[in-house]
């Protein structure tokens, strides 16, 4: 009960990746490097980034993505809210 009164914080994970069709030279470089290490049959490597944050209001995260965390012109984002 005491725990609930402290104000709930939600853990949010934001996955950001280059949009389909946008050149991703990092993904290409990784894809070219893997066979050199013996990992064959790897395709469509895309390199993005992960942002983790604690928030009071999970609904605001998409807005954060639009305004700062991602650039919607070149990046897609996916928000996962984890109740901890």
């Amino acid at each position, binding site marked *: 009960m005491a725990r609930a009164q402290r104000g709930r914080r939600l853990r949010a994970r934001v996955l950001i990746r280059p949009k389909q069709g*946008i*050149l991703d*030279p*990092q993904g*290409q470089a990784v894809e070219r490097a893997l066979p050199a290490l013996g990992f064959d049959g790897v395709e469509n490597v895309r390199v993005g980034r992960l942002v983790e944050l604690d928030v009071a209001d999970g609904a605001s995260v998409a807005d954060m993505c639009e305004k*700062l965390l991602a*650039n919607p*012109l*070149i990046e897609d984002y996916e928000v996962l809210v984890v109740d901890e």
Partner: protein
Amino acid sequence: MKFGVVQFPGSCDERDALLAAKRFGDAELLWHAERDLRGADAVIVPGGFSYGDYLRAGAIARFSPMMDAVSEFALAGGPVLGICNGFQVLCEVGLLPGALLPNDSLRFVCRQVELEVVNTGTPFTRACEEGERLSIPVKHFTGCYFAPESALEELDANGQVLLRYDAGQNPNGSLRDIAGIASAQKNVFGLMPHPEHAVDPLTGSSDGGKLFASLVAHVEELVAA
């Protein structure tokens, strides 16, 4: 005629921009945390790594108080020149369309490039001849200009592409060899090459000076009118 040169934490070309501007008029640095343009007639957003380029190049700088003032100035028609990281900031803040992606080579490029002046009817290029070639250095990792196909069509149709890399010179994979674009009103201009590093024959070229001279002519004409 006075230039204001914005300085963010992580800027590194503001001194060169200041010195280059001083060859053509008065110039003063504008600290990012302030919002007073100190009477500048034209604003330069210089190159470097504003706020460490954390998250994305130029993404954090757009929220500085000074960029608020610069946006207001630009929306009122004031001339704003964004160089390299400054170009990235102007795209992030929405004063210019499109975005800059990591170079297609995934390498930092630092070399002299030849540019074609595509449109001379702007405050930034009026001292150039149509089709004139300029030799100006680039030095960047995130300079691949991207905009959706429809936006690229619009840029070309409106004469917003001011500079293109010459054939075989594109250092970063920019779509349509775009080196610099202007806003629809032509008072905001962003480019990846560094005109402030090309104002003295001692360093190989003084072609960059033409952009500064253009701005001076533009502002003096406004004052005279």
